[in-house]
Each structure stands twice: as C-alpha cells, then as structure tokens.
C-alpha cells in the first residue's frame, strides 16, 4: 500500500509539472492583464510602467524560470488583481467550495443509489425506465439554466429560499441542488449496472441458498459490492464538481474557488490562474488518492493484496 501511495505521489508530481507548464504558457498567450487594470485612456507610458511593476516585461522564458524557481518554494506568485499571495487567495476561498461539495455528493448519492437499485431490481421494466429518466434529467439540464430557474421559482416567485450568496443553511439548498443533480445520473447508472452484475453473481445465489431475506441479499450483499465501483466515481465526480462549481458559483454568487477561477481567467490574473489550476490539480489528485485508499479499505481484495 505504501508503495502504491508513493508511486501515485510520484505520478502526481509529474502531472503537476505538466499542468503547471501548460498553464504558464497558455496563460501568457491569452492576453495581458495590464489593459484590464488601466482605464481606456491610459498612456503608453502608464502601460509600460505597470507592465514592469507586474514583472511581465522580461522574455517569456525568463518569466518561466522565475515562476519555477518560486513555485519550488511554495510561492505561486501574487495575484495581480487582488494583490495578495495567490496561494492565500485560493485557500481563503477553498473552504467555501469544500462546504458545498460533500452536500452535492450526498445529494447525488441519496438520490442516485436508491434509484439505481430500484432500476436494477426492475430491469427493463417501467420503474427502471422511470428511474433512468429521472436520473438522466439531471445531466440533461444545463446547470446554469437549472440554477436560474431554481432562483426564479424558489426564491423570486415563492420566496422560500435566498437566491444567492453564502449564508445559513437555507443558502445551501439551491446551489447544492444545482451542483448535485448532475451526479444523480452518474450514481444511478453505475449503481444500476453494478447491481445488475452483482445480482447475477454466484455469491448472491449462495446468499439466497442460505435462506437470507431478500432485503439482506439486496442491501447487504449486493449493494456492498455494487458500491465499490460507485466509490471509484468519487474521484471523477469531485473533479467534475470542482469544474461545475465555476458555473454554480457564478450563478449563486458563491465565493468559492470556481468563481475565483473564472475571475482569474476573465481578468487575466496569471499568477492567480496558475496557482488556482495547480492547487486545484493537487486537490483533485489528493482526492483521487484518498478515494483509492478508501476503495482499498472497502474492497478487501485490494486492501490485502
């Protein structure tokens, strides 16, 4: 296991280097933040001065060398727009996103897994198709559209829920629904197919031969096995959620890293953008690693291998 983790960490490091390099050069191609920071009638002189202040004037390779040198020491630069260390900006906002994600996953699982089980139990039947349709509806609706509709219905028309921003528990409802619905289909599909596979297996037959009740057979023997592939999805989903957060956080004025990312692109805040992408990659990689370790815990075949 240790060896496995070590290897994964190594791979992660290589990956991060790739990501960092791509981001650096791509970011430099996308435009210059100077113009966004200056009024339209700034003079060429103002422009040059600001470019120098921001350290954007050297040859790009020199800039890259400086970037790498600092990055090794954990300094991913200072946000041009917010004038604070980019790493700090990221970690300031990260909790706001992190409090959203578990709820979204929970919502996805609470709806998706039972739907998947029901669909598998009624394979090919009406309930299967109904469950499938309900679940797929989540992926079929663009999340920004869903978010706007939810605000319009539940906040503006009905006045039940606040329409945006972080706040008390009520503030979580709409963003979590927006973020979580698209997971339902994923969880449902994988639960369904895993259940179908497991339900055909010999050990389920043996469990029935033992005379166990149908509930124990389905919810203990089948589901526990079916949950293993469900778990592998977590890694993918968290990645999706972090990306999906860009849209959700924009719609709901949620001050998380999704919004931060979007702003970093829009304002060409290179250091911030680099930091956000690199730190996000670290986040996704660590979550994937954590999921794999968890996976090993759930599946004894891996744990004890």
């Amino acid at each position, binding site marked *: 296991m240790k060896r496995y983790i070590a290897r994964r960490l190594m791979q992660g490091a290589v990956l991060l280097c790739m990501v960092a390099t791509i981001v650096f050069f791509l970011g430099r191609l996308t435009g210059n933040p100077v113009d966004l920071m200056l009024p339209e009638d700034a003079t060429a002189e103002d422009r040059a001065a600001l470019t120098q202040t921001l350290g954007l004037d050297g040859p790009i390779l020199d800039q890259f060398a400086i970037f790498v040198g600092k990055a090794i020491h954990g300094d991913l630069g200072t946000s041009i727009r917010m004038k604070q260390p980019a790493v700090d900006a990221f970690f300031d906002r990260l909790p706001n996103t992190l409090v959203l994600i578990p709820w979204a996953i929970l919502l996805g699982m609470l709806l998706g897994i039972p739907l998947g089980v029901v669909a598998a139990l009624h394979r090919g039947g009406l309930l299967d198709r109904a469950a499938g349709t309900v679940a797929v509806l989540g992926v079929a609706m663009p999340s920004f559209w869903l978010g706007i509709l939810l605000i319009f219905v539940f906040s503006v028309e009905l006045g039940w829920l606040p329409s945006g921003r972080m706040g008390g528990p009520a503030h979580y409802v709409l963003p979590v629904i927006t973020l979580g619905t698209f997971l339902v289909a994923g969880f449902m599909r994988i639960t369904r197919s895993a259940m179908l596979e497991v339900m055909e297996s*010999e050990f389920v037959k*043996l469990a029935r031969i*033992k*005379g166990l*009740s149908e509930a124990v057979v389905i919810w203990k023997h089948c589901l526990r096995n079916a949950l293993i592939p469900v778990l592998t999805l977590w890694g993918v989903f968290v990645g999706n959620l972090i990306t999906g957060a860009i849209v959700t956080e924009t719609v709901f004025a949620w001050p998380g890293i999704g919004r931060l990312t979007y702003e970093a692109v829009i304002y060409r805040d290179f250091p911030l953008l680099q930091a956000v992408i690199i730190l996000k990659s670290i986040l996704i990689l660590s979550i994937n690693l954590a999921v794999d370790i968890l996976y090993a815990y759930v599946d004894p075949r891996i744990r*004890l291998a």
Partner: protein
Amino acid sequence: MTPDAKGETVLEVRDLHTHFFLRRGVVKAVDGVSFSLRRGEVLGLVGESGCGKSLTALSLMRLLPKGGAQTIKGEVLLGGENILECTPAEMREIRGRRISMVLQDPQTSLNPVFAIGDQLREALLRRKRAPLTRAPHAEVMKEAVAALRRVEIAAPEQRISQYPHQMSGGMKQRVVGAIAISGEPGVLIADEPTTALDVTIQLQYLKLLKRLQAETGMAILFITHDFGVVGRMCDRVAVMYAGRIVECGPVRRIFEAPQHPYTRALIASVPKMTGPVGRLTTIEGQPPSLMDLPVGCRFASRCSLVEQRCLDAYPGTVRVGDEHTADCWKATPA
C-alpha cells in the same frame, strides 16, 4: 439425527417444467423431469451443457434466474410438501435448512467483500432463528470455527477472519460446503462442485462430501457432466438430454448395461484409462434447440438406431429393470 427410516424418500420431483419465456420464443429448458431422492443417497444428474440439469436444480431451490424463467408445471415434494406452492417467506425458511446447494464456481460463490467468518455466521444464525445482529458474537464465531473444521480446513481460527481472495479454490469450495450444510439440510444439491478444481483437489472434495453425507445422512443430488465423478460419488444416476431425463438407474446398471442409446454412446465416447487406444466412439450432430424441440424422441436425429416411430412420438418412460428406467422405444421392459 432425524428418525427417518433408511431409504425413505426425502425429495420427489414430478413432471417438472421450467421454461424461459423470451420474446423470441419459449426455451423449454426443463421439460418434464421426474425423479426421487432417498435419504442418504447420492443421485447423479448427468448431462451435457444446455440439457437443463442446472436449471432443474435452481427450480428445486426456487432460485430461477431473472429474465423470464418460470416453473410452469410439476411438483417438488420435499418431505411430502410441495415447495412450489410455498410463499417466498416459507421458501426462505426451507432454503439452507431443509434443502441447500453448493455452486459450481468457488471463485465467485463467496462474497468478496465479507470475511469468511461473516458469511458463515449469517448461515449459522439462520439455523438458530436468531436475529442477525443479536447473537453473542464469540459463540457464533466458535461455531463457525467448528464448521470450518468439519470441512477439514486447516487452522480455521485464522481462516475465519480472512477474505475469499486469500484462499485457494479448493478451500473456498470447502467453505461453500460448510455454509451449505450449516443448516443441517436433508437434501443437498451439488451443482458441478468440482468442475473448476484440479483433479487431486477434486478427489479430496469428493471424499469430504461422502464423509459429510455419512455423518449427516443427507441426500445429495449431484449434478455433473463427468461420468468419472458419477462412478465415484453416486448410488443412482439420471441421464438428462434436452430437458428430459432419458435414463435413470443404479450406477452399476447404467455403466454396465445402459438402455438408452444416448447413455450408451455417451459412455462409449469417454476416453478411458485402460483398454485399447483407438478411435473413440462419437455421437454425431448437435442436440436439438430447446426452443424448437422435435415431437418425437429428442435424440432421434443423432441416434444410430433411429426408426420412424422415434420421429413420430416421444417414447414413454420404460421400466427396464429394478429402479431402472429409460425413455426409448427400443428399450425392453423388465
């Protein structure tokens, strides 16, 4: 020990029909199977793949695969009670306690995510009718160890906390056996339990089964395609072909004087360890499609002795000897 008299019939199957209802048609996988099983006896059910022997077993357990399989006719009398008429709840009570089963593939028969002990525990608790969660753990585990010891697993105390993937195939099949017999069932169905095992391990397992049977007096329905296993294990043997039992009788009689041409050909086609090495006898052709069965004898198209009447009508079951029957026009009644 139950006070059953030796030779008492514990399981009787009468005219069992289990069909698959598919959109393409009806697959008559089990199409009129009858046999009986006596206490302490091993009945071999032999046949080639697709002849319906496994489905017969699953029909007896009422564990038909999903997707259109249905027992439409017949009786399965377990101790005189037709279990086809039981409610699902009653059937759960019967399974594992009065009739149990060992499956073919030891690799997939155990749930990979639970320790061996857990899986045994479920079965043991069932026997005690105790709620799954409330029995004292230590006591049940002690019983689980005993159950493993009974199937000759070395160091059962350690094995109990292991997971299936940590065991060899032979060992897993023993655990499956331990689970299957933990409810002291009167009838055990063994569906090709040794097919996936190496020959030396197979021998160990068969001997174990024999011993367990001697200890408990259970009746075993032993499903196999291997005449060697039949010869070693069984008291009587029923030969199945295309959904029907075509011949049934004591093992020695079947081997020495098979009455059905299919049985005869089948035994002849098996390569032998002794005797001359020459061309093997073969059965040409293929078994008929279970979706489109002929009206006459199902073996007629491959039979070397075929006559017109074989094609016209299915031959009845003919008593050809003491406890020996054959479904053939040419069989001579005893």
